[in-house]
């Protein structure tokens, strides 16, 4: 079935982004609500999210989405007004509704009907809501006992005598359209309008009835004659959803006012101040500058001369009640007071202003910007090299000095520009973390486990490209922890642990890198089980198993095809995943480490670069080819004499601080004909991946350089041991080494 929504292409991204924000907020807060049941702020926020979603769905004509959001909103409204209670069943239903809303939201883009059972959802909400309805009625009645706002400066001696004065009264009648949503409010508007023209009598419905917010279809009121009929007609015509207005002598013929006809009176801008509580008048009286009586007189005059649009202040001056100076200072004083009264709001608003100045832009645009900055960095690096050459050859030359300074300045500016662009691309990792409370809740409910999820450092920012890549690995780690790590409450109690397990998710910056940890206080990983399992599956031989330290054994979990859990579950499956988790993290130049203590818990630590677009590297050379090794991977560099290199089982090694370090000749790996082995000395870059270290032998170390990553694209495709390329400052191309791939290639790992 083809669906049609009232939304244009340019509105689409806003709609999708905003609805996603609200759905995410609902997900997150609903889970928190379950813990912090009566948090009013949370209740308000979650209600607003549902309410706003409903409004947006309505605007594009998505009726099914409106139905679900309406049911959700009603339930949340019940919660915030204490008519409903937070319990797991209701939260479950709300979360189910949020899931349904996600699918309904997708319909807007796909134009395809999803299989959300809207009726079933709304019916189940009704059951919850109906249970609270008896209370609702009584509450509504209680609320309606609010006092009437009085029009303070209304002169006491109304009505004014402008027309013929016979004591006959007029009947004002009006009908309120029966599809009006808040007909009582319309009736209230009618009442207010009529009250401006005199003392209202015999009003139907009564003011009390109107204020109870009960629906009103007919309005009727009596007013003593003497008021300006045309002005009242006009005033009433401003009220929407009102028809068949008549103003007629009580015993006479009704005068039907044509809809839309403007009354013949001259008070075109009928907002004359006297109709409103005039703050200035009150202020002057309160300050003792004029008397209440003087105010009344002025107001009266203002009313009788209403066509002239006289200002109250000027009238008071003309009538000699107050001097211009006094009036001016009173006005200033009044404004000051009003400012103060909203200053608190303004203070709050200043914080808000930042978000107000936001611009939404597409990721593609940021990527393009980043590419341009990348080009600029390449040119900057080139300029540096040219400058250095000029400096050596023509030192002291005034032009060269000037050029040199300019190049240095451009360099600084480029650095700043890069930093700014990077900052724009930064997103708090909370964008990923926020999904996890829901995930952990659902998983632990399925498994009958009790788990506290603690999230720290959610404001830690990292590049958008990294954020996109880290989501799946994290989900996997969390599933593993919940499923295999944390024990059932019974098991925990038996092991002398608190019944509730804790899953801790943290993120922080450290030396230009991001460190993310996933830590549980569960059962830990049993090295013996891993060893047995790996042998049984033929991943390693028994002999290898015996020689492996516990630490190295645990690392085997990152091999594909290994599972130690007794039974597979639909949550984390069997043995697939950890290898993919590591591969995904390594693909973005990250590393993952595992640390586990049997019976106490497991911690995974992920180290990520801040961005993928620009990588700090160590440039090395093998014959004529430049290679760039990501600095994240580099532990140290060494200079070795041939005698330092020995061979163990055909594997070249060296001794580094009493530990054996396997060596790998880059020339061998990439089949470059080089004379590395016959040289007097060798340069070695010690790199680490996980807990393994290896020395990469190269011809020369060129130095550190930030390089802009260029992917090979589909034409060249994947090259084992090389992740991508970079253009260097001198225009040459350097190949960026994929250390993990390299280790695999060399067969050392």
């Amino acid at each position, binding site marked *: 079935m083809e669906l049609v929504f009232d939304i244009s292409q340019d*509105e689409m991204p*806003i*709609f999708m982004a*905003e609805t996603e924000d609200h759905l995410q907020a609902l997900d997150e807060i609903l889970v928190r609500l379950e813990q912090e049941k009566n948090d009013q702020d949370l209740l308000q*926020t979650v*209600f*607003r999210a549902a*309410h*706003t979603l*409903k*409004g*947006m769905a*309505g*605007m594009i*004509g998505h009726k099914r989405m409106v139905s679900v959001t*309406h049911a959700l*909103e*009603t339930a949340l*409204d019940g919660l915030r007004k204490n008519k409903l209670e937070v319990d797991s069943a209701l939260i479950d239903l709300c979360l189910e509704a949020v899931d349904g809303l996600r699918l309904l939201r997708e319909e807007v883009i796909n134009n395809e009907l999803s299989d959300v059972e809207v009726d079933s959802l709304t019916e189940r909400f009704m059951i919850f809501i109906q249970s609270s309805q008896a209370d609702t009625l009584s509450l*509504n009645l209680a*609320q*309606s006992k609010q006092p009437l*706002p009085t029009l303070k400066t209304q002169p006491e001696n109304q009505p004014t005598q402008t027309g013929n004065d016979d004591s006959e009264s007029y009947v004002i009648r009006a009908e309120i359209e029966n599809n009006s*949503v*808040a007909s*009582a*409010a319309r009736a*209230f*508007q009618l009442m*207010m309008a009529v009250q401006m023209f005199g003392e209202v009598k015999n009003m139907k419905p009564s003011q009390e009835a*109107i*204020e109870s*917010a009960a629906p009103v279809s007919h309005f009727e009121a009596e007013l003593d004659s003497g008021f300006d009929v045309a002005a009242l007609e006009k005033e009433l*015509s*401003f*009220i*929407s959803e009102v028809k068949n207005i008549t103003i007629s002598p009580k015993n006479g013929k009704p005068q039907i006012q044509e809809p839309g006809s*403007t009354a013949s009176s001259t008070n*075109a801008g009928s*907002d004359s*101040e006297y109709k*409103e*509580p*005039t*703050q200035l008048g009150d202020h002057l009286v309160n300050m003792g500058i004029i008397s209440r009586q003087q105010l009344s007189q002025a107001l009266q005059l203002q009313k009788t001369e209403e066509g002239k649009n006289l200002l109250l202040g000027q009238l008071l001056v003309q009538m000699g009640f107050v001097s211009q100076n006094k009036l001016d200072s009173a006005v200033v004083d009044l404004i000051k007071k*009003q400012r103060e*009264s*909203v200053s608190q*709001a*303004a203070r*709050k*608003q200043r914080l*808000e*202003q930042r*978000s*107000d100045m936001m611009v*939404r832009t597409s990721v593609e645009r940021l990527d393009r910007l980043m590419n341009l900055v990348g080009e600029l960095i390449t040119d900057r690096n080139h300029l540096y090299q040219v400058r250095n050459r000029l400096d050596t050859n023509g030192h002291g030359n005034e032009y060269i000095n000037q050029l040199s300074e300019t190049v240095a300045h451009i360099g600084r500016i480029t650095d700043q520009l890069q930093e700014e662009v990077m900052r724009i691309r930064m997103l708090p990792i909370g964008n990923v973390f926020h999904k996890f409370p829901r995930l952990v809740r659902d998983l632990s409910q399925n498994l009958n486990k009790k788990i506290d999820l603690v999230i720290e450092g959610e404001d830690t920012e990292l590049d958008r490209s990294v954020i996109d890549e880290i989501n799946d690995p994290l989900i996997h780690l969390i599933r593993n922890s919940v499923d295999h790590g944390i024990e059932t409450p019974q098991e925990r109690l038996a092991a002398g642990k608190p019944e509730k397990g804790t899953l801790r998710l943290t993120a922080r910056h450290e030396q230009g890198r991001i460190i993310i940890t996933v830590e549980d206080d569960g059962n830990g990983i049993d090295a013996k089980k891993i060893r047995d399992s790996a042998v049984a599956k033929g991943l390693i031989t028994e002999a290898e198993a015996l020689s492996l330290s516990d630490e190295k054994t645990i690392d085997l979990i990152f091999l594909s095809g290994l599972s130690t859990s007794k039974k597979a579950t639909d949550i984390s499956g069997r043995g697939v995943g950890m290898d993919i988790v590591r591969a995904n993290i390594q693909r973005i130049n990250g590393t993952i480490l595992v640390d586990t203590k049997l019976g106490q818990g497991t911690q995974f630590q992920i180290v990520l670069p801040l961005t993928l677009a620009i990588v700090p590297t160590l440039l090395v050379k093998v014959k004529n080819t430049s290679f760039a090794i990501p600095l994240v991977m580099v532990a140290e560099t060494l200079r070795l004499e041939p005698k330092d290199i020995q061979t163990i089982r055909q594997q070249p090694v060296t001794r580094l601080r009493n530990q054996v370090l396997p060596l790998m000749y880059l020339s061998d790996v990439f089949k470059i004909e080089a004379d590395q082995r016959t040289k007097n000395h060798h340069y070695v870059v010690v790199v680490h991946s996980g807990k393994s270290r290896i020395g990469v032998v190269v011809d020369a170390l060129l130095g550190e350089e930030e390089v802009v990553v260029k992917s090979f694209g589909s034409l060249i495709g994947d090259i084992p041991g090389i992740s991508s390329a970079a253009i260097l400052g001198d225009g040459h191309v350097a190949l960026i080494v994929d250390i993990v791939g390299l280790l695999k290639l060399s067969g050392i790992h």
Partner: protein
Amino acid sequence: MTKILIVDDAEFLRVRISKMLSGDGFDVIQAENGARAVEMYKENSPDLVLMDITMPEMDGLTALKHIRGYDASAKVIMLTALGQESVVLEAIKSGARDFIVKPFEHERVINAIRKLVA
């Protein structure tokens, strides 16, 4: 040109109403919550305000009271949704000149505005 301040926390709605009104020759400014609306009212003295009721930071009802406190002749139309009858009544009592129920059609909005800023 008639200046209209649109207040709604949903950017989607602000954009939609803005487009609607700009097309009809109105000068449109926007605020995303009540607090900002009060501030912008003072800075720009718009001829009319279209304001949502349910918003974070400061809701529409509170903002309405602030705006009316600052300018007793302020013309504010509330944007509301089904189920907010009592709030609407409260808004009218507090000086709102009209209210429009979401979802609304173009014509409904324009009519309400023209009634107040003839």
